[in-house]
């Protein structure tokens, strides 16, 4: 259940910023952490800290159990068929780079195509740009509809027999658009391409079922889903991962090391070179427990509600333009906007003076900014700890900002 009580689990929210109670509307950048996650990290370091998969001592076993236990939680959370398909990495960026550098280098040749969209985060653009340059491949962009959605006709027009990889964001970090990745995966597969899903903004907000989506790879980050920074996940289908070479070599990931040649561990460890992100994984496991107890369906419903209320109330402010789908049911709890001629940085500064945290800038999506024909925007993003009173504070703050700049202009 989403109720008032939820906010009380997030100690950081209980403070004043610039003399006003904090309203945190930047969860799309990173979410805040509940005590359950903070305590899991603290307890791990206080009671169980040790290196994993080595040694015979008790602490080593305990740390290993916790680390691998977190992997099981992730497996269930995204409904992967086995824990072998769950690789712990630093975050979404690292996960997509791994796919590009390992699967991409082995499977993309000169003249082949990689298909992405105009609404990608830089982390789902640049790895493919680099791969395309290295392999002499062609990077293609799927056009967006006027309301910032993707139509399957455009997808079908972009994907051809030369397409080897299709990579798409599930939920746009700017427009909030929820993309039909399941249908896109089907089209990709019909043409023999693999489907990569950037799930950074989806995993915190929607129930993820990688088998139902039938995607080949799915990447997400812990810190956007009430977990710690520095931990993320790459899901990959076992058959694909088995054929892939690691991109990081060293401790932990080896089976046998000779003088001139070495062999790798089994999945998933062959991709986890070096001492793994043990505490991060434990924290992510606690985050998954927290979200699962509330229920992802509940969270998704709450966010659609937040988006609907925010859009309705913000539309009442003259001169405020909202980007992305007009229909709140087509978007997650992300509302990106501009206010008349007031630059988003200036809007964000005025809001900050009122204790309201929003993001301003290009949101790591410069090609999308170009498509929107703006240099920057402001973004309010909502999560399970936000409620209608936060939206009221936002609209009040925006009205003040408008007034303030009308006076000074």
């Amino acid at each position, binding site marked *: 259940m989403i109720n008032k009580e939820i906010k009380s689990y997030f100690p950081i929210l209980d403070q004043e910023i*610039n003399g006003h109670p904090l309203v945190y509307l930047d969860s799309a950048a990173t979410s805040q952490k509940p005590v359950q996650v903070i305590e899991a990290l603290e307890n791990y370091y206080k009671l169980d800290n040790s290196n994993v998969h080595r040694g015979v001592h008790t602490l080593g076993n305990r740390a290993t159990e916790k680390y691998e236990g977190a992997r099981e939680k992730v497996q269930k959370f995204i409904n992967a068929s086995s824990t072998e398909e769950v690789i712990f990495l630093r975050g979404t960026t690292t996960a997509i780079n791994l796919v590009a550098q390992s699967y991409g280098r082995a499977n993309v040749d000169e003249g082949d195509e990689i298909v992405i969209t105009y609404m990608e985060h830089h982390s789902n653009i640049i790895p493919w740009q680099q791969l395309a340059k290295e392999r002499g491949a062609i990077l293609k962009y799927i056009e967006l509809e006027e309301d910032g959605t993707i139509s399957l006709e455009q997808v079908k027009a972009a994907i051809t027999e030369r397409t080897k990889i299709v990579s798409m964001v599930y939920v746009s970090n700017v427009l909030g658009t929820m993309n039909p990745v399941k249908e896109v995966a089907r089209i990709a597969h019909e043409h023999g391409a693999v489907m990569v899903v950037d799930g950074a903004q989806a995993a915190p907000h929607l129930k993820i079922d990688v088998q139902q989506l039938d995607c080949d790879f799915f990447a997400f980050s812990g810190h956007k889903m009430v977990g710690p920074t520095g931990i993320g996940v790459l899901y990959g289908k076992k058959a694909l991962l088995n054929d892939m070479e690691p991109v990081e070599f060293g401790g932990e990931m080896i089976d046998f090391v000779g003088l001139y040649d070495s062999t790798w561990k089994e999945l998933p460890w062959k991709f986890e070179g070096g001492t793994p992100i043990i505490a991060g994984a434990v924290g992510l496991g606690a985050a998954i427990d927290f979200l699962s107890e509330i229920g992802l369906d509940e969270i998704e419903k709450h966010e659609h509600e937040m988006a609907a209320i925010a859009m309705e109330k913000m539309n009442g402010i003259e001169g405020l333009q909202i980007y992305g789908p007009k229909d709140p049911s087509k978007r997650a709890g992300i509302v990106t906007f501009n206010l008349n001629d007031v*630059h*988003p*940085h*200036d809007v964000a*500064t*005025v809001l*900050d*003076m*009122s204790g309201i945290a929003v993001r*301003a*800038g*290009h949101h790591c999506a*410069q090609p999308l*900014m170009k498509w929107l024909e703006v*240099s*920057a925007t402001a973004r309010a993003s909502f999560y399970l700890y936000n409620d209608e009173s936060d939206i009221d504070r936002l609209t*009040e703050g925006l009205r*003040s900002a408008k007034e*303030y700049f009308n006076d*000074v*202009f």
Partner: protein
Amino acid sequence: MSFKNLDQLYRSVIMDHYKTPRNKGTIENDSINIEMNNPTCGDRIHLTLQVVDGIVKDAKFDGEGCSISMASASMMTQAVKGKDVDTALGLSKTFSDMMLGKDYDDSLDLGDIEALQGVSQFPARIKCATLAWKAMEKGVHEQQKS
């Protein structure tokens, strides 16, 4: 709601430079061209300088960004025009010190620039204010090298 703190940031002279920027545009002939971005927020400046015999004969800017970055660019071009290169760099150092809240050399005539002093109270906005100055420094150093 009153915003007393904000008035320290958005002084009227700053808003005046933002609304009616001085030296907006590009110098066509024989100029030093500098493009600089603030990659975290998307502010962008294109600065052109004409330096003859160690004197900044002309300075023009183009670009997009918030009120602070564009007003600062306007003020910077106004301040360095007609100055010798060393004075221009000295002004830049003074400005940087002012932004960082350090004691700064008050022997130089800062003119309108002094209005930006309040930015130092807003750490997230210092980069907006220094973008144009960094572009100027880069341009001057490149010219000195060649």
